[in-house]
Each structure stands twice: as structure tokens, then as C-alpha cells.
């Protein structure tokens, strides 16, 4: 029974990885996808040097949050600490995705976050998308910096390092990754031809309520000040 469940998680990682690859949010060797093993302090993650086009369940790496490998075969994504930092601080999160989607990567290199330009941005992500300061990849710092930039929201940019999103399911996390790229493209485009109209001053409480009830995954205590 337990084995079957684990097989399902592996399949879910593969499904999400193929989805972001097919939506052109990552290329081979870029980005990573993980799923938490139910309520355990373990995750299933795409392997290091991941080839999305030939990825299958056997290549998914099972490991404990303390770093102990629980599967043999491939090595885990080198960004596994970033994923674990999010799972540790957010018990509701079931899926974490990191992409290098093009427009979001451009903004991440310019170290520009995405201000509030569309109302859906609040519903799905919680509001503006902030940028985490540069932290060397694969270190504990990048995890802390990412959590800081996430605040109580579901997506952040990582300086010179693309996008991080987390969600209560793989399906919604894929959606968030796709949506961050869309917003990045729209924001980037408005900057080329003028100035975006930014929504901060509007009355947007009903969208915040939707975010809190439908998609928020940070600890409840953080939502009080949201």
C-alpha cells in the first residue's frame, strides 16, 4: 500500500516536470520539481542533470529532509535544500517547482520584482512577486532568502536564478509557475512601451479573501497580517 502511494508521488513528479517542460518554462538541465511524501519529512524530486524529455518514474529521487537518500540510482537535484526549506516552513505545501522561464529570468537578472498588475495575481499568488536577494545556489542561504521573499505568498523570483513557486497540489503549482511567466512577460512588455498601471491602491480585499481560502499555503499565523 505504502509502496503504491510512493509510486503515485513519483508519477506526479514526472507529470508536473513534463508539464512545465511542454509549456517551455524549463529546458533540459534546468529547474526542478518535487512532491512531499504525504505528511512525512521526505520528498520525491527530479534528479540532477534532469532530461525532461526522457524522464521517467525510476529516475525520481526519494530522500529525507535531513539529506538521507532513500532511493538508489540518480542523485537528487542540487537545489534540494531550497525545496526542503519550503516544506519545513510550510506544512501545507505538497509541491515545489523551480523554473528558469524566460521573461521571469530576465526580471530576476535585472533584480526587478513584479508589482501588482492583475487581480488574478492576488487570487493565485497572493499579490506582488518579490525578488529574493542573490544567494549562492545549493546553499542554506538561498532557502532563507527565498522564504523571505515568499512571505505568505506562493511565488517569488530568485536573483539571477528564475522562479520559485509552491502549492497545495502539483496541478495548482504548475499553474502558478505558468502564471508567473505570463505576468513577467506582461510586466516586461509594459516597461518597453510605457508604464504599467499598478493596482496597489485599489480595493482588492475580495481577491485577498479568495487567496486566503483557496490557494494560500503559508502558516495561518502569517496570514493574519496579510
Amino acid at each position: 500500500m505504502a509502496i503504491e502511494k510512493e509510486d503515485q508521488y513519483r508519477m506526479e513528479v514526472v507529470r508536473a516536470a513534463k508539464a512545465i517542460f511542454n509549456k517551455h518554462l524549463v529546458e533540459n538541465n534546468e529547474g526542478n520539481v518535487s512532491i512531499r511524501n504525504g505528511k512525512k519529512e521526505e520528498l520525491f524530486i527530479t534528479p540532477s542533470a534532469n532530461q525532461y524529455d526522457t524522464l521517467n518514474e525510476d529516475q525520481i529521487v526519494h530522500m529525507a529532509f535531513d539529506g538521507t537518500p532513500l532511493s538508489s540510482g540518480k542523485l537528487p537535484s542540487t537545489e534540494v535544500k531550497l525545496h526542503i526549506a519550503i516544506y519545513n516552513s510550510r506544512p501545507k505545501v505538497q509541491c515545489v517547482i523551480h523554473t528558469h522561464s524566460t521573461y521571469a529570468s530576465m526580471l530576476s537578472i535585472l533584480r526587478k520584482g513584479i508589482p501588482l498588475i492583475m487581480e488574478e495575481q492576488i487570487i493565485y499568488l497572493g499579490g506582488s512577486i518579490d525578488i529574493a536577494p542573490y544567494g549562492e545556489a545549493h546553499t542554506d542561504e538561498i532557502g532563507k532568502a527565498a522564504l523571505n521573499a515568499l512571505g505568505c505568498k506562493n511565488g517569488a523570483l530568485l536573483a539571477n536564478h528564475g522562479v520559485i513557486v509552491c502549492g497545495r497540489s502539483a496541478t495548482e503549482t504548475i499553474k502558478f509557475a505558468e502564471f508567473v511567466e505570463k505576468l513577467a512577460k506582461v510586466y516586461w512588455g509594459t516597461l518597453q512601451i510605457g508604464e504599467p498601471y499598478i493596482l496597489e491602491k485599489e480595493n482588492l480585499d475580495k481577491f485577498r479573501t479568495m487567496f486566503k481560502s483557496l490557494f494560500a499555503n503559508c502558516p495561518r499565523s502569517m496570514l493574519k497580517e496579510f
Partner: protein
Amino acid sequence: MSLINEDLLRIEVVNGAKKVFQKGLVQAGEGNISFRIPNKDELLITPTFNTYDDFEKADIVHMKFNGKVLSEGRLPSSEYKLHVAVYQLRPKVMAVIHTHSPYATIMSAAIKKIPVIIEEQVIFLGGYIDVSEFASAHTDEFSKNAIQALGTRNATLMANHGVLVCGRSMKHAVKMAELVEKLAWIHYGATLMGGTISISENSCPMFIDDFESKFSTHREFTSRCEE
């Protein structure tokens, strides 16, 4: 309305929705597509949180203009009021589509109108593409602003909210949603290269008759090309 006919109309909505999805004009959870039920104050509309790749005709919501849902299952798109406002104002409209297509959404977030830059724009859409004043989505004010920006035409941008098009058929509406994105892309590109040169003054009147006879959905006596 017999069940068989309603089934055919549902297929119209599914086909329209799949087309705008395949053309990249919407992504999962974005936009909405509806079809009027002839001679009734009712419509069929895509559900809220619509996922275009796996949805089917059973997911389409049948509802009255007053908001009452007549079908079981999914909840309607939260933008249904916008669709109803267009159907009520324009009896000729059979299909309404709202997208977040990328370049048009850029224009809408930068609050930039699209002047008449190619002739087909007049034939299909009736002239320039305006941007409605910002109002919070799902409100009556949001619908009012969109209707105002539509004027006598078939398409408008909505501030920070993408595109609205309406047509005499689903085929027309899909074509218009596609054309708005194309025009937004061209206008965007031309703006970067030095600025779009509008053709309104010369070419617009020549094509207004085509628009009025084949594609217009408004109730005014005649369209105006200019702002």
C-alpha cells in the same frame, strides 16, 4: 429549448474555448467563453477555474441572465456579469469571449489603445481598440466601463484585464479574439521601432460598410472610425 439543441450549443462553447486555448490566447484558469441561448435570457458559459485542456461539455454552465444557475455541477465563470451585460445591450451578439492574450494584456496593463493600423481591423472589429477605465473585476462598474469602451465596435481592451470581444457567431468571436492579439503584437512591435502610423483617416471609411453588413453587433445607426 430541447435538450439536443442545448447539447449542440454546449459544443459551440467547448469548441470556441478549445480554439482560443490552442491559439495561446488563454491559459488554464484564465478568460471565459459564452454562447447565448437563442430567444431566451439565458447563456452557456465556461466554468470558474476552467482548465482548457481537459474540460468537456458537461463542465459548461447553463444560467439565466439574472445569475440563476440552471445546470448542475460546476459554478459559472466569475465574469458572467460582463457577458450578460453585452448580451442584454446587443441582441445580435451570440458569442462573447474574454481572453488574457499576451500582447493585448500588455497593452491593457500599459493602458494603450490600438489605433487603426490594418484594414481588416475595420472590417472585423469596426475601428480602433479602446481601453476601458479600470474597475475591480466582477462588479457592475467593470461591465459598464467595458461596454462604454466597446462603443460601436466588437472588441475592447480592459484596463489590466485583457480583451473582450463579441460576435454574431462563435466563429466570428474566435476570429476577433485572435485578431486583437495580432493587432496588439503589431502595435507593440511598431511602437518599439519608432511608432505606429495609423491609417484611420484614409482607409477606415472604405471598410465600414463591410463591417456594418457582415460583422457589426451594435445598435447605433452607423459606426465611427475615429475616437
